[in-house]
């Protein structure tokens, strides 16, 4: 049963919520300013609820089943996070309230900054960025501001490994730098030779993801950092894969100068069908003054206006302040506070021991799956992986079958497919990230399905190329959609 569009169930005169009457004298409306009509749907509350309830059931989500989407860290997110994020004392606060009336919010942000510093080793953290890519932009702008502050204007190029996520080069462009691609070596590391060939005084820095998008920990990360620093560049860390290394190593100690965190990956805030996320940036001491702001600082009460009441018994209070040489604001207000709330709660529930257990089990689960599958699917880089690994969908004996077919067929088993066709350096890539929240039973069921699919690919390839078969819709025509875009349903 298909669900009609909300416009198709609209009928003139219906409404989905009862609104108050006007309790003041009405003012004359400025007629020439007014709109003539407004094509919004008109539905009753019951029809609204049924529409969205039915639509919800057409979705796969982590709460329904396994979601091993590589690079996205689709872990299960504790329900307590959701409850905390709905506490009225947080929800009903305005960003421009006087700081003494939002000491709870500022306390929380301050301590989240501190926790992230401790986990990563950085000297300072800003919670401003709204997502990972936003954090990247911040980081690259910070690198730029750093060089400029030193009067070093020659640096125009950012080195980016060929395995990097698309946001890395895109952020680089936005920040006004040129992207230089660095190839990977046969073991999936950054090629030191290629890197060496590009290290000169035009290099602003390098954006490195470690573990990288192959799920591999770069064996030469210390050398890379040294080489970049030696040529005067700075090392940016794409922290999307932090889930592999919490309590295992602090990125700052690997030589990173600035890094973003994906709170919506590592720190357990659900992805919301695409967002919201939060992408705080951490910086080493030399880059800290350039962080986007405001950030939360702790000040003695006597240092701030007298009216401020101390939240803290010892006479401290929390304030929003702009870092000294800040690149500025990255968005209005102070970051995605509601997301930060969930990350704070998560870190408090896990503690240092729990976070290390998270990373250990994320890596354990990935290696277990890798070992269950590597004899069936080609494994381009046969090494111990971190929290994820990349197989190839080029199955021997099944020439007509592609990764897309394997992915679609997996849906028939109730699983969300892995990330496909990324990273670009693996042909027909299948990028699998199980996360720590999955049980051995689930991993086994998934491995069994992939093994069965590999057999089907040889024996009954059409089963794959026409998949999926039991989903709410069959395989969709994406090419047609782009050729003649239908992007809304308004009649006009």
């Amino acid at each position: 049963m298909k669900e009609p569009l909300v416009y198709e169930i609209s009928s003139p005169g219906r409404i989905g919520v009862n609104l108050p009457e006007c309790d003041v004298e009405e003012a004359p409306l400025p007629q020439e300013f007014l709109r003539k009509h407004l094509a919004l749907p008109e539905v009753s509350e019951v029809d609204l609820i049924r529409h969205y309830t039915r639509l919800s059931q057409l979705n796969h989500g982590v709460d329904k089943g396994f979601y091993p989407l590589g690079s996205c860290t689709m872990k299960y997110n504790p329900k307590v996070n959701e409850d905390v994020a709905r506490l009225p004392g947080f929800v009903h606060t305005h960003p421009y309230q006087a700081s003494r009336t939002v000491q709870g919010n500022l306390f929380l942000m301050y301590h989240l900054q501190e926790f992230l510093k401790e986990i990563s080793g950085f000297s300072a953290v800003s919670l401003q960025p709204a997502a990972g890519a936003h954090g990247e932009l911040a980081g690259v702008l910070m690198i730029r501001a750093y060089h400029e502050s030193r009067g070093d204007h020659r640096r125009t190029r950012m080195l980016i490994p060929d395995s990097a996520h698309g946001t890395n080069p895109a952020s680089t462009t936005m920040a006004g730098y040129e992207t230089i691609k660095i190839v990977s070596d046969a073991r999936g590391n950054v090629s030191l030779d290629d890197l060496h060939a590009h290290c000169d005084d035009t290099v602003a820095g390098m954006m490195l993801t470690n573990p990288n998008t192959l799920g591999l920990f770069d064996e030469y990360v210390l050398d890379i950092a040294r080489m970049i620093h030696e040529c005067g560049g700075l090392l940016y860390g794409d922290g999307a894969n932090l889930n592999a290394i919490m309590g295992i190593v602090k990125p700052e100690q690997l030589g990173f100068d600035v890094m973003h965190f994906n709170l919506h990956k590592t720190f357990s805030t659900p992805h919301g069908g695409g967002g919201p996320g939060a992408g705080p940036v951490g910086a080493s001491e030399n880059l800290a003054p350039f962080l986007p702001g405001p950030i939360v600082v702790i000040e003695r009460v006597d240092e701030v206006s007298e009216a401020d009441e101390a939240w803290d018994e010892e006479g401290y209070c929390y304030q929003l302040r702009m870092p000294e040489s800040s690149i500025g604001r990255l968005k209005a207000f102070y970051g995605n506070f509601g997301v930060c709330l969930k990350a704070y709660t998560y870190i408090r529930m896990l503690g240092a021991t729990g976070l290390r257990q998270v990373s250990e089990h994320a890596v354990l689960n990935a290696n277990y799956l890798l070992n269950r599958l590597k004899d069936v699917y080609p494994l381009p880089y046969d090494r111990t992986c971190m929290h994820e690994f990349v197989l190839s969908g080029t199955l021997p004996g099944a020439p007509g079958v592609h990764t897309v077919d394997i992915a679609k067929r997996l849906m028939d088993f109730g699983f969300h497919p892995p990330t496909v066709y990324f990273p670009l350096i693996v042909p027909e890539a299948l990028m699998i990230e199980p996360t720590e929240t999955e049980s051995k039973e689930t991993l086994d069921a998934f491995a069994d399905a992939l093994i069965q699919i590999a057999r089907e690919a040889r024996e009954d390839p059409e089963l794959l190329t026409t998949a999926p078969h039991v989903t709410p819709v069959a395989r969709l025509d994406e090419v047609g959609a782009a050729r003649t875009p239908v992007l809304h349903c308004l009649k006009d």
Partner: protein
Amino acid sequence: MSYIPTTDADRAAMLRVIGVETVEELFGDVPEAVRYPEVKLPRRLSEPEALRELREISEYNVDLDHAPCFLGAGAYRHFVPSVVGHVIGRSEFYTAYTPYQPEISQGTLQIIFEYQSMICALTGMDAANASHYDGATALAEALVMAVSASRGKRRKVVMSAGVHPEYRAVVRTYTQGAEITVAGDQDGVSEVGALAEMVDADAACVIVQNPDFLGYLESPSALRALADTVHAAGALLVVSADPIALGLIAPPGDYGADIVCGEGQALGGGLSFGGPYLGYFACVTKYLHKMAGRIVGQTVDRHGDRGFVLTLSAREQHIRREKASSNICSNEALMALAAAVYMTALGKSGLRKVAELCYHKAHYAANRLSALPGYELLSERPFFKEFPLRCPRPVSEINEYLLDEWGIVGGYDLERNYPHMANTMLVCVTEMNSKEEIDLLVEALSSMEEGA
């Protein structure tokens, strides 16, 4: 631990399959010198302890359910119908990722398609995306898009001083690596005619906000004249607009805007101390392929049945990498869902009604407040739900008094951004402010003067 299901027996069996003895062996690639650092975090909390701690932290705030509030300035306290929370609280929505795999994501995809339709209806544009981080970043990306629409040739942007000060700051952050000049706002130019005069062959776009940061409305005819000038010069008109106001006033599409964007928080989002909010974004067909972000299109499946997919992704970073129109990846999808539910619940008449309530109540407040001795409206210009109020003393002083003595959260202190607007409060009134609350504010201010 409740979040990690692996039992000791599971772990042993898994290590055996992997062929190692201990989990530690899996981390051999991590340089030994820095492996296993000390991480100092407070003791972990059980669930009841965490809930308690977080509730206690939240209670250190003054929450606006318990204090009449006249603060707006870009973040608004509008009514959020119960259905919104119930729909976005469905875990099928909030535990899904970006709908890369459309066959098992039709829920999210169809709703985004409906959201796009509603945003197009609201703005009068042809296409909308879902979504940007907030109103400020949406505006910054609009500017980047306008420059890119000129294939990078036009590098001047005329921005009205009526644009939200923080949005203007974000525009400057976003453009600091690009060679783009932003003109107008820093000289305080906000009058439509003056903006039009600044448009030249190097201008990529003109950016206005309507209602502007001070709450004033610009007439559609004046904006139409601006659009004509802008278009004649080969530039784009970008309008940032409060979507609630669009329930009542002419859609920017009517007067020739090319890009309409803004802060969608008012559409079913909470205040949440500033985030997560929702950058909505729409444009005319001509610039569709320059638009950033996720776009959903209608298509058919193998059997010819209707379905929805992410489309036109050749614009995006995961395909075009350094040539992408933006770096955006994660966005504010769940807030877009909330906005869709909100617009569905209110619908055609409801959004109009909310806008009218704001309008009437704000005007009632303006009349009463400006009748107080020492208080006057900054100007007689038409406004929507906010207006600048000249006060007899510094706003910070007034707000302190209001909070301490009356439990009222007063308006925004315009001196924070406009030094020439000392003693001027930006008062915001929405449908959430009852007549009693407004009367209480009037009473409080008059008693302050009496006491003084």
